[in-house]
């Protein structure tokens, strides 16, 4: 059972968002374990710490104290051990600049935080059940933003 568990890691400084996130995932009943950290620094530490499971997807909020999502993304992509990780940007921002920056830096998907819990659930379901191997290979800008 434990071997089938899907680990996802979320970095978000907003407590409410972390709550929505884990609630949504739990309600999906996908045998998923959510690990949550509060900022970028904590995220990097968690990732580097031995013994921690390798997450299926890393969800990155962009606007975080200490270390922002973009910086984390850069760091992950530079690190040889981590660069293969699938990264999903999870942000309130819908600004073109943020989308483009994260795309250029190698994020796999961009999720704009929905304002409806049901939509959020749908989105999570899609992302987690996504076949990342296919996704990382035919990357394009149109499919980068997640449509729910």
């Amino acid at each position, binding site marked *: 059972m434990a071997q089938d568990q899907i680990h996802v890691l979320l970095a978000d400084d*907003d407590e409410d968002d972390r709550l929505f996130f884990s609630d949504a995932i739990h309600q999906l009943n996908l045998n998923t374990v959510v690990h949550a950290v509060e900022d970028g620094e904590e995220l990097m530490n968690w990732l580097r710490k031995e013994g921690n499971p390798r997450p299926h997807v890393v969800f990155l909020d962009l606007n975080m104290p200490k270390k922002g999502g973009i910086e984390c993304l850069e760091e992950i992509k530079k690190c040889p051990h981590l660069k293969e990780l699938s990264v999903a940007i999870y942000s*309130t921002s*819908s600004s073109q600049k943020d989308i483009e920056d994260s795309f250029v830096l190698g994020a796999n998907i961009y999720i704009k935080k*929905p*304002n*409806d*819990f049901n939509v*959020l659930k749908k989105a999570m379901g899609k992302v987690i059940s996504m076949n990342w191997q296919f996704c990382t290979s035919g990357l394009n800008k149109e499919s980068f933003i997640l449509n729910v």
Partner: protein
Amino acid sequence: MSILELSENYLRGAFVISVTLLIFIAGVSYKQFHSYHKSQQLVMQSHYSQKSLQTLISHITGMETYQRSFIISGDSAFLEGYAGQNDKISESMEKLKSMGTDGNINLAHLDSMERLVRERKALFDDTMTLFAEGASLGDNLRKGNGQTRKIRGLIEHLVADQGELLAERENASEKSYRISPILMFSTILLALFIISLVFIALTQILRKYNKANRKLNINNEIFKQAEEISGTGHWYYNFHSQTLVFSDNQYRLLGLTPNGSPPKLHQFLQKVHRDDRTELIRKLKYLYHNEACEEGMDLKILTEEDMVRCIRMACKMISDDQGNKILIGVNKDLTSEVNAKEKLSQLNRKLEIQIKMLSNAEMMAAVGSYSYDQDKGTYEFSSNLFRILELDPENEELTEEKFLNAIHPEDRVRLEKVRKKVGVATVFESNEFRILTSKEKVRFLKYTYKLFKESGKKMLVVTLKDMTEETITKKSLEEKNKELYHSNAELAEFNYFASHDLQEPLRKIQTFISRITTMEDIHLGSKGEDYFKRIQRAANRMQNLIIDLLAFSRTTNSEKIFEITDLQSLVIQALNELNQEIEEKNAIVHYDVLPTANVIPFQIKQLFVNLISNALKYSKNKVQPEIWIKNEPLTQQDLVDFNSISVDKLIKLSIKDNGIGFDQEYAESVFVLFKRLHNRSQFSGTGIGLSICKKVIENHRGTIRAHSEEGQGATFTFVLPILGGQTLVP
């Protein structure tokens, strides 16, 4: 010349001497010849006298013989001879007498001769008479012999005399003959000698003359050439012979061929231009009467080809050695000078105008300038430089020192360095400096300079632009720009705040509401549910407001990057974005093949999105919404609106719907920010959408108009320049 004159005198003397000598020789010769002839004649006469004397004696002897023969023979035939001899004796006697009168024979002797002859003749007659009487003849014959002897003796004497005279005369004649050849010969030699001298002298003189002549010829040629080159000509008029002589170039000046037929004075005067002729004639008359000279008068003459030529003429009246009055004149062709002068004065006038224009231009452009002659070290300041320095160009002076002192002390050192460097081509980093005017005001100047060589002179021309106003404007602009930059930065921050931070709590509210309403284990009751729905609507509206406001501020502030874009593709993108609404409303959208234009793509897409969503939103109940996007022909009004753009550089599109429309009265106000025509409960909306459209069209320097009637649908029409706002001068 004096040598020639001297030698001429010598030659004249020599000539006179030689002529005198020759005349003398001729005279002497003649005289000699004459005397010789005379003496010869005398000799001849002597010979003749001798001969006559001998003839006489022979006749007497002959008469004697005839008488005797007659006497002896009695033959009367001898009487004939006897009478003949008698006549001949008388004849001879006459001859002798005539000779005697000529002085050849001594007359006394001749008289005695005559007497003796007469006696003898008488004796003959007596003898004849005696014979006729038959008397004795012996006495008479003896007497006769004696007389004949006497006569013979006298004749012999006379002949001897004549012989002496002859000898004497011959001697004299020979003597004179002997003296004259020597004299003549020597005289002729002398004359020849003199003539030879004269000849030698003459040849030398001739040689000199030839040499002088050659020089003269050369000089003459030089003179001709000089006249031709300098455009001068000369002429003279002999009042006595009434002849006018022109130099070669004088002909040319008058447009004639040199060495043509000599012109007459009146013809020459006819050549002079009407305007000057009277004056010239007056002057010439004056010259004639006063023997004065005219330093120079300027005349216009007409050449053969009817061209007007300007000449300057100097005249002088002179008299030659025969007292003939001769008027000489020298002309110079001033045509080219006059033309050049005319051109120069035209240029000068132009230059003056240009200088005035320049000075006006300087004033307008707030530019002053000065030139510096590096060789002379002199300055020339333009009048506007005076004005910049607040000096009066008319009454105040500007010197190098004064100008340098006007430079602001803080800039002076820097400019001094520049001043010293000038001459080497250097580009200076900053060419701005300040000056203090005479009224102690600070002005900002900018300089440019140029060094150049003008006819060998090194000139420096410095142009100074008064940048005071520009500098002040620039400074205030810079400040305003800074402010703008700050406010823009603030706005950007606000934008981020609005897009992120402001939406963040709202999103949570919405999410929590959605959670609550979907939770099965919570019972809200019907009122609670209604309230939650109202909260949800309010939250949604706020979110829309935020999103629209953001969009509006983006159209105002974001970077406006124009790209050549296919408008049709933008319409398709907009339709894709609105896909959900279109499907919900089951709307039909028609669109033409749309052109390509230079636009800001995301803004135009936004424009289409807003206009189409508006059309969908305000559709009629129970009527299938239809939307038409069309190319429209340009109207006169559009051309007036875009008077600087030609027709083929404009596009006009319309978006028409079959919705509820609105009163034309509101056609303007629909574009006003937050302006709404309908109640929120009827139609949701923020009142920003059309304002964004207007903003977008303004960004593209186009126009947008709305046309509608209540219940008749609405049409939004916009016109855009194809090349976009960039190419337009604001």
